[in-house]
């Protein structure tokens, strides 16, 4: 077991769910119509949002659990608390964090760990001035960057227009659950023609948590506009909530360019079931950069519906599955218009009994002329107790389409390790170099600080794997 | 065959490449077209072949007085127009020998396989290829030299009246160039004409041209006799 996993379990045992002294609003355990009404009431939502929630609850109740993907048998819907405002899922102050966890962050070389660990009120430390300036710039350009709860009240027209249109409640059981009990998440609206130069990060939001159980994120990018949104960070995210069912809806209008980067590193007790989808209109470009490092089970397939001619999708996904982890990830692209292009690159690593599965779908509708798609999924098995699966699906109904797919599964070559050791590297350093090379297509797309953190994390993991 | 090109304007992928080409090749003549990279030489070859990506915006192409403009590529071929491509397409699963026999039968439906084999053997000796070469799939994994050999074998067996050679010499060693050029030369006669597209004048030592044209930016900017080629070789295109 790696050091990080050991830390995870110790954290659960010792710290669990801490009840801070201040008043916490929460619903009783389990899911029912009263719970949903209470959530809406606590938030003081307009009627139209309450109706969306209630309708979604009906759909949730009518849908069976999916029979494919990971093992969902450990989920007991009656056990969870579906809403708790200001609940402290993490320690209240840096002082309360156990010593060995602090040391991990030191080893990872993350000086801002404090800020990230405390869950997102990023304005507390030295970034305060940067943060304020960013906010002023954004406001001047007409960019809206707030949490979804506030958006329902302050921008109801926009929310009504797009909410649940990209991912309807009926899409799948967990999307229905999220639509019924959602809370928190980011709301971003970029007006036509505006190019947001600095990536927007979840922890720049002023007053909401960035670790949500049922986060609902809605991003609308106007014509010719451009934005890069980063959700999460590579540092381990401790959570006692073991069900996270988030929904992300992205709309890229004509000529827009959107990149959404996530690196998920949930503690190993979490079921991470996420529906992420984008609608890409004419000549727009949507990029999902999706890193899955943590959780007990992740089921996540970022997808793009290419609805306008000339639109483009790029899905870059990495998954790392360690002991007792199952990463079931991939991507889906639907070519619904002509001259659309897509690319899916997936790299997965399995180690210490972990299981990494790539699940992908490329569909070309009849009439979507001259579309091209390439898929490349490679998997690395670092030992003989781990598992790798690949389930790529191609469905083509249009004769002018060109679809190509390549996959490989293998292990790190002994000759590669030997060569690097002969050049002076230790065995674990050699392994780390090779694994980093394997995921280089992904890391080169990350902002520098994330790439650095990810690199350190991999190095740590590889140290743990060599006897 | 007499080829006449009048004020030809051609675009590829919405980009204008040929901007008013004028050319006339009489039966029995060999003409050379030289020019810097990107001047449109290959575009001319592919336009004559009738490749769908090459759109004729304006102008005329006449072969023995007949317009080629609405004529589909295979009909042009059956008239006797043969284009040796610079980058011929690969045809997976179709052996070269099969393509050669089928092409021959198109032109002579009553051709027997024995008679065809005789002709094929003769050509293979001239081009120096082994029988194994003929069993490989058309152009699949062929080296540059092998591709040119395959093109010339097809040329020799197709009873051509007009050959367009698109950079036959590129990527060929001295000996191969000699063998292939001599083979093309053997077709010379009062009814046979050729358009030789090249960068260098070496091929023209064997395939001596009656006229040499220089193409720059999609237009023929100079024409002359074989000496023009020598001039380019020593002074470069900038001297024009």
């Amino acid at each position: 077991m790696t050091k990080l996993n050991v830390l995870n379990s110790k954290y659960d045992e010792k710290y669990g769910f801490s009840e801070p002294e201040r008043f916490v609003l929460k619903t009783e355990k389990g899911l029912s119509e009263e719970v949903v009404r209470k959530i809406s009431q606590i938030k003081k939502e307009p009627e139209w949002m309450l109706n969306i929630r209630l309708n979604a609850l009906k759909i949730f109740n009518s849908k069976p659990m999916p029979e494919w993907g990971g093992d969902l048998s450990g989920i007991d819907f009656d056990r969870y608390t579906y809403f708790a405002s200001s609940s402290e899922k993490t320690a209240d102050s840096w002082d309360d964090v156990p010593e060995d966890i602090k040391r991990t962050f030191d080893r990872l070389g993350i000086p801002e760990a404090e800020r990230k660990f405390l869950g997102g009120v990023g304005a507390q430390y030295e970034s305060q001035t940067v943060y304020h300036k960013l906010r002023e710039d954004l406001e001047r350009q007409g960019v809206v960057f707030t949490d979804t709860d506030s958006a329902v009240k302050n921008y109801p027209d926009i929310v009504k227009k797009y909410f649940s249109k990209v991912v309807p409640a009926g899409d799948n059981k967990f999307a229905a659950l999220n639509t019924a009990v959602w809370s928190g998440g980011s709301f971003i609206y970029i007006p036509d023609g505006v190019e947001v130069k600095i990536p927007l990060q979840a922890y720049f939001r002023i007053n909401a948590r960035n670790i949500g159980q049922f986060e609902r994120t809605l991003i609308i990018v106007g014509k010719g506009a451009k934005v890069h949104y980063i959700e999460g960070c590579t540092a381990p995210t401790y959570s006692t909530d073991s069900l996270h069912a988030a929904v992300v809806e992205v709309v890229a209008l004509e000529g827009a360019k959107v990149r959404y980067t996530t690196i998920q590193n949930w503690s190993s007790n979490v079921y991470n079931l996420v529906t992420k989808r984008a609608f890409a209109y004419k000549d727009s470009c949507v990029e999902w950069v999706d890193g899955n490092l943590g959780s007990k089970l992740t089921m996540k397939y970022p997808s793009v519906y290419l609805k306008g001619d000339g639109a483009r999708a790029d899905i870059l996904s990495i998954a790392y599955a360690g002991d007792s982890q199952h990463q079931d990830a991939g991507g889906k692209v639907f070519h619904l218009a002509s001259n659309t292009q897509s690319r899916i690159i997936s790299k997965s690593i399995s180690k210490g009994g972990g299981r990494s599965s790539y699940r992908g779908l490329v569909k070309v509708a009849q009439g979507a002329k001259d579309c091209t798609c390439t898929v490349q999924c490679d998997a690395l098995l670092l030992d003989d107790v781990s598992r790798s699966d690949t389930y790529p699906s191609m469905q083509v109904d249009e004769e002018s389409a060109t679809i190509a797919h390549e996959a490989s599964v293998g292990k790190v070559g002994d000759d590669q390790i030997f060569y690097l050791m002969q050049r002076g590297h230790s065995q674990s350093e050699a392994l780390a170099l090779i694994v980093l090379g394997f995921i280089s297509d992904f890391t080169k797309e990350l902002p520098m600080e994330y790439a650095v953190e990810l690199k350190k994390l991999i190095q740590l993991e590889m140290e743990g794997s060599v006897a | 065959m007499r080829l006449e090109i009048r004020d030809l304007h051609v675009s590829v992928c919405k980009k204008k490449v040929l901007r008013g080409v004028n050319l006339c090749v009489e039966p029995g003549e060999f003409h050379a077209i030289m020019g810097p990279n990107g001047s449109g030489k290959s575009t001319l070859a592919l336009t004559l072949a009738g490749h769908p990506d090459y759109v004729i915006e304006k102008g005329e192409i006449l072969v023995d007085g007949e317009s080629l403009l609405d004529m589909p590529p295979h009909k042009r071929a059956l008239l006797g127009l043969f284009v040796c491509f610079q980058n011929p397409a690969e045809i997976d699963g179709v052996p070269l020998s099969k393509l050669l026999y089928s092409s021959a039968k198109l032109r002579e439906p009553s051709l027997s396989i024995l008679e065809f084999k005789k002709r094929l053997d003769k050509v293979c000796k001239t081009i120096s290829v082994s029988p194994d070469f003929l069993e490989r799939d058309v152009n699949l994994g062929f080296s540059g030299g092998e591709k040119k050999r395959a093109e010339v074998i097809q040329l020799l067996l197709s009873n051509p009246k007009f050959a367009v050679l698109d950079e036959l010499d590129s990527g060929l060693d001295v000996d191969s160039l000699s063998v292939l050029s001599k083979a093309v030369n053997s077709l010379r006669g009062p009814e046979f004409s050729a358009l030789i597209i090249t960068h260098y004048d070496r091929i023209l030592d064997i395939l001596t041209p009656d006229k040499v044209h220089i193409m720059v930016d999609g237009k023929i900017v100079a024409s002359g006799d074989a000496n023009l080629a020598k001039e380019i070789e020593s002074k470069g295109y900038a001297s024009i």
Partner: protein
Amino acid sequence: MSVIEVGAGEEKKIVIVHSEDSARKESQERTIRLLHPSASVVVEEFFCSGAKSNVTIIHEAKNTSSRIITRGVARCGDIIVANSRIIIPKGSSGSKTRVEQSFLLLDGSSRVRATPSLEIEEDDVLAGHCASISPISEDAIAYLASRGFDRKVAEGMIVEGFLKGGAG
């Protein structure tokens, strides 16, 4: 559903042809078990018309090898469903597998559905697959046209060559 077992050191070749005559509505299921060390199988599957096929290969011993070569041409409303599933459980070290699928889709009324899956629990393996779905190359059509073949004949030659090309 048919189950084929391959024994020690045995090299089996299985050819499956889906044609108009044999086309059936229901899905054809085949499972091949590589039972003993060094067993190997090569499956050549050709779709000359619509059909539904699932081929599963289980590597149940060390140093086993499998190869699936699938080629299909879909036209005139054909629906091709070509699924394969390769399973290499823990312990079957030294095993190799390769799946190659290529399809030509000739017109707008036809469909191709392909899912080549891999489930691997052993790290000492070489596993890979590649798949492609594409129209007939216009360059190839233009090339054959320049040799005198009209479009229909050219398509026929290319399709025939495509299916034969799979025969390695």
